């Protein structure tokens, strides 16, 4: 079965550079979530999209932005990178429409290292 695909798997950037992470949800899933997991930390919710509209926002820095496109893939754009942005970034997708409870399926994550 198709899973959530994230690219790239690994990314190394310098301070003050920009980075774009991509997420391709499971086909027919209508919701995408982004999480950030720092070293030794639990995953923190950043932002979510339902049917291409932002549906919820967590602890996402103003330097970050995200969107979901017409084909339902999502991109997380990160500017003015700081050393503290080094983390594992997860994308998850689920089918929320018309359902009271759903399961989110996670991608393998993108490991971003800022040097």
């Amino acid at each position, binding site marked *: 079965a198709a899973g959530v695909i994230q690219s790239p798997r690994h990314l190394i950037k310098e301070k003050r550079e920009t980075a774009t992470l991509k997420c391709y949800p499971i086909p027919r899933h209508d919701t995408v979530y982004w999480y950030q997991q720092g070293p030794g930390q639990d995953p923190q919710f950043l932002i979510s999209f339902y049917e291409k509209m932002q549906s919820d926002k967590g602890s996402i820095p103003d330097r970050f932005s995200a969107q979901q496109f017409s084909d339902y893939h999502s991109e997380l754009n990160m500017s003015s990178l700081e050393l503290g942005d080094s983390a594992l970034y997860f994308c998850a997708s689920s089918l929320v429409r018309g359902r009271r*409870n759903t399961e989110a399926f996670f991608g393998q994550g993108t490991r971003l290292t800022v040097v």
Partner: protein
Amino acid sequence: AQSVTQLDSQVPVFEEAPVELRCNYSSSVSVYLFWYVQYPNQGLQLLLKYLSGSTLVKGINGFEAEFNKSQTSFHLRKPSVHISDTAEYFCAVAGGATNKLIFGTGTLLAVQP
């Protein structure tokens, strides 16, 4: 607001011994609970979930968890662990309109021979 507390940051256990990883939740609405496992340098894999119905939930790899509403707990158990179970285990609660997950701080299960 919803939250999850994992009281143990690390649980050392010998191979073939039973283990329990504790999770307590706080929620003012209907609660959906999950346990995820993360192996080193890997993504998050769903172990099991409680959405409704039977309070005893069985998952993959021989794990099970019991939803206890009166104690607001969702402890994870396995009767006999293997070396390969060594990993970080996250309890999570989902809810609200967006079903976003709120994770606990994780418990490192360290299985020793």
